[in-house]
Every structure is written in C-alpha cells, then in structure tokens.
C-alpha cells in the first residue's frame, strides 16, 4: 500500500464553507491495512472476510455503540443501551455459515410455489389443510417477533448473529405469507384460532433472557415445527403443499441449527446457563404438549394424515402418534447436542411414546 509514502500534511484544515475538516481516516486503520480477504469459489462470503482482527469476536466487548467491529473507534461513543454484551449471550459457532446459507437459499412464496397446480380437494381435506394453515400463519411470526424483540439489545460486535436473525425474520415473514396464501388460494380460507396457540406464543415472547427465549423458540418450538414441516410430505394433498412444506422445512432447519449451537456455546461458556434453560424448557414442554394435543390441531393433522375423515381412526391417529414420537425424539436428541440433556428431567412420557432413551443418549455422546 502506498499510503505511508504520501504526504497529506498540506490538505486543507477547513472546507470552502469554513467547516472544520478531519483527514485522520486517510491514514488508514491501525493494524489491518493491506489485509485482503480472498473470495471463495462461490464469492466473497462472511467466512472469507473473517480474517485478522475482523474475524475476532470479543467475548466481552468494551464498546456499546454501533461502531463496526474492527474500526478505529473514537473514545466516548454513545452507549446504545445493549444488555446482551457477552459473546455467550448470542453467539453460535455456525452463525456465519448459516447466514450465508440463508442468503443463498431465499425463495419466493409468490414465484416458487406452483400455485397453478392446486387441485380441488374434498371438503374435509380442504378444511383440515386450511385449519393447519390458519395455525401456522399464527405461530410462524413469533419466530420473527422474538428476534426483533432482542436484536436491538445485542451488542453490535456480534453483528453476524444479528445478521443471521435478520434472515430468520425474513424467513418467517415468508412462512406467514405462504400459509396465508395457501389457506385462501383454494377457496377454504382462514378457519379457527384458539387460545392455546397464543398461550404458547406468550410463553416464548415473555422469556426472561434471550437464551431462555432461544431455547423455547429455536430448540423447542421451531424444532417441533421443523418436524411438522417434514411431516408435510405425508399430509400434503398435492405437489403444491409438498413444495410449500419442503421449502419451509429448509428455512426452519437453519433456525434450529442456530438455536442448538447457540445454547451449546452458551452452556459451554457459562455452565450456570444450563439451569436457566432447563427451567424454561420445563415450562415450555408442558405448554407445547397441551398445545400439540389441543382438539383442533390434533384432529386437523389426523385428517390430513388419513387423507380424509373416513380413515381418521385406523390411519390418521396411529400415524399422528408415530409422528409425535419422532418429534419428541428429534427434540431430545438436539437437547443432547446442545449440552442440556433433558432425559432425566423431562416430564414428557417417554415410555408411553415408546422413545428409546439410549439411542438419544448415544446421539449426544457421538456428536
């Protein structure tokens, strides 16, 4: 770089209008001048630019302003009122990767769903699909509202985590959009919204800390919705719904991946957090179980699994039980991965559901 050889001393001290001028920036940053990240084959990613001090995320940032991490920061910058000022409060080791993935895998609920292929369905199946879409339209936006509630409280040094949460907010807006569109698109419309859903959502939004909130939302709530979306392949009456569920599933899995690894990071760096997370999940599991077994949710799912009301008892409910088992198994395995084993503490009736505890425990050991 040639800046060291140039003489800036003769530059004017005031503007033509008489305003004072500052040329300090022209001397370059203190240490990383000349550091040049190299683009990877897919472009210049956030992982590529995490070089030198720019890639070092402080455990306890000294600044509480919106100054970019790695800049020369003027002393006395205003305090933005951040309360999440420890890296362990928000960080996950996969944050940058997930942000890039999210940006690369955005899709459009308007353009990427083959709406023209929607078929006329039997009334019972259309009603069930609309009931499910009503519920999903309602619950999906909590995963946008919750990060929004906490993001402005996160120290700006953790910019990558905030950026990832921005992608999650966009994802959830799209999910609310796509399920609202599906409810309306085939003539059924939005059906019944009951108190149970809002009780669950209030539990999540009112969590005392961000890590409790992320345990309730990413690990528990979104983990269950992720498996519901996977199940969408079975409950979808046509290729249109299959595509909707599959695209939503991809997004949801990223959110769960962030939440799982955030809790792991948080617990590893502050073991006291584990009890805080357990307390949240003790309550959350109870509310989620009540919500999942609510009469309208379970019946709509059973009708979709059975392909109509005719086989709801001999096919719908047994398949629904099997899916519930899978949901709880996946959730408990993720808890093991996150470093907060729930196997000894959960009130979920594992025996009744036929969940193999050893398989889940092994998943935690080998991960």
């Amino acid at each position, binding site marked *: 770089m040639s800046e060291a050889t140039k003489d800036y001393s003769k530059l004017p001290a005031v503007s033509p209008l008489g305003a004072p001028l500052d040329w300090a920036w022209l001397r370059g940053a203190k240490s990383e001048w000349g550091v040049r990240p190299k683009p990877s084959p897919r472009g210049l990613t956030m992982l590529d630019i995490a070089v030198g001090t720019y890639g070092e995320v402080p455990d306890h940032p000294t600044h509480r302003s919106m100054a970019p991490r790695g800049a020369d920061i003027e002393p006395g910058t205003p305090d933005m009122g951040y309360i999440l000022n420890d890296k362990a409060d928000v960080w996950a080791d996969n944050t940058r990767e997930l942000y890039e993935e999210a940006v690369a895998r955005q899709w459009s609920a308007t353009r990427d769903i083959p709406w023209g292929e929607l078929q006329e369905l039997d009334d019972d199946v259309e009603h069930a699909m609309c009931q499910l879409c009503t519920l999903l339209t309602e619950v999906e936006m909590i995963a946008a509202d919750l990060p929004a509630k906490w993001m402005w409280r996160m120290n700006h040094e953790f910019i990558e985590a905030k950026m990832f949460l921005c992608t999650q907010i966009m994802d959830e807006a799209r999910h609310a959009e796509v399920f609202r569109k599906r409810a309306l698109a085939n003539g059924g419309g939005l059906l019944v919204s009951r108190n149970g859903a809002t009780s669950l959502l209030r539990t999540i939004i009112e969590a005392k800390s961000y890590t409790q909130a992320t345990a309730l939302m990413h690990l528990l709530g979104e983990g269950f919705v992720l498996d519901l979306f996977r199940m969408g392949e079975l409950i979808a009456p046509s290729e249109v719904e299959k595509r909707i569920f599959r695209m939503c599933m991809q997004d949801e899995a990223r959110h769960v991946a962030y939440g799982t690894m955030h809790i792991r990071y948080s617990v590893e760096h502050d073991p006291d957090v584990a009890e805080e997370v357990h307390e949240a999940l003790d309550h959350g599991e109870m509310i989620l179980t009540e919500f999942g077994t609510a009469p309208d949710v379970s019946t709509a799912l059973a009708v979709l699994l059975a392909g109509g009301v005719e086989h709801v008892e001999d096919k719908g409910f047994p398949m629904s039980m099997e899916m519930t088992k899978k949901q709880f198994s996946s959730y408990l395995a993720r808890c093991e991965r996150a470093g907060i084993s729930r196997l000894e503490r959960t009130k979920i009736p594992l025996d009744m559901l036929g969940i193999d505890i050893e398989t889940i425990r092994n998943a935690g050991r080998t*991960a």
Partner: protein
Amino acid sequence: MKINTPEFFSALAVEMNAHPERYQPLGEADMDVVIVMRDARRSPFAVRLAFEGIRCEHVVEAEADSPCEYRLDGPLAAWQAMFDDIVANGRATGLHTINSLALLGDDIALGGSDPMGLDKFSRFNQTLQEFFDGASTLLALEVAP
C-alpha cells in the same frame, strides 16, 4: 444403467453439474451424504456424495458405515421403486420423495450420529431431491433408441 453402481451416481453428479440453472435458485448446499442400498443376495452397495455449493463434487464408493453427516439406508428394491417413479413422472411424486420415504422409515431410513448432521437432510432437502430427480433425464435417455 444399474442404480447400485458408482457410475449411476457419477452420472447423476454430471447431470447436476451440467445444470446450474436448476440449482442456483435453490442456493448452495454443503453436505456429506452416504447412500446405502441393501440386497440380500450380496453385500450392501454404498456411495458417498459430497455436495459443495451448487455442485456434487465427489462420488466415491464407500463402506455402508463410512462417517458422514447423514446416511440414507434402505433395500435396493425401495431405491429402485423411487427411481422408477422419478423416471415415470419426471420427478418424485406422492410418497416417493426422499423426505417421505425417510420420514416413514419403513424402507429407507435416515441415520447419522450427530443431530446437526441429520438436520442437514432438512436444510438441503430440495437440492437432494433435485439431484435424485435428475435420474429422469438419465434413464429416459438410456431407453431412447
């Protein structure tokens, strides 16, 4: 072309890599997958697929228990039925999508030791489905005069 051969999966990889326009809208996918096809008459066939960005970069014959992020393991007949459906319809339909098959788990099972690896099956599912759907072009071409 037999589906339980490295050549078949190499051909699927060539098909994917020749059509970035199909995979670009889905976005990049990075995953390390083992496909296992079991046949009572012989030892299992297994192939390891490494996806990077919008390409399938590596196809290598492997052991059924090779380390990977996730594995899809099932009888050869179930895989054959899936590919037959893809060839017949141009893409997997009904319960023949890989997500449906792995969700039911009756035939093809999703496995892996790390829940985060397993979740990659969900994160990149549409990419994997498109990869398998590529068989429609391959096998259709093979039966053409």
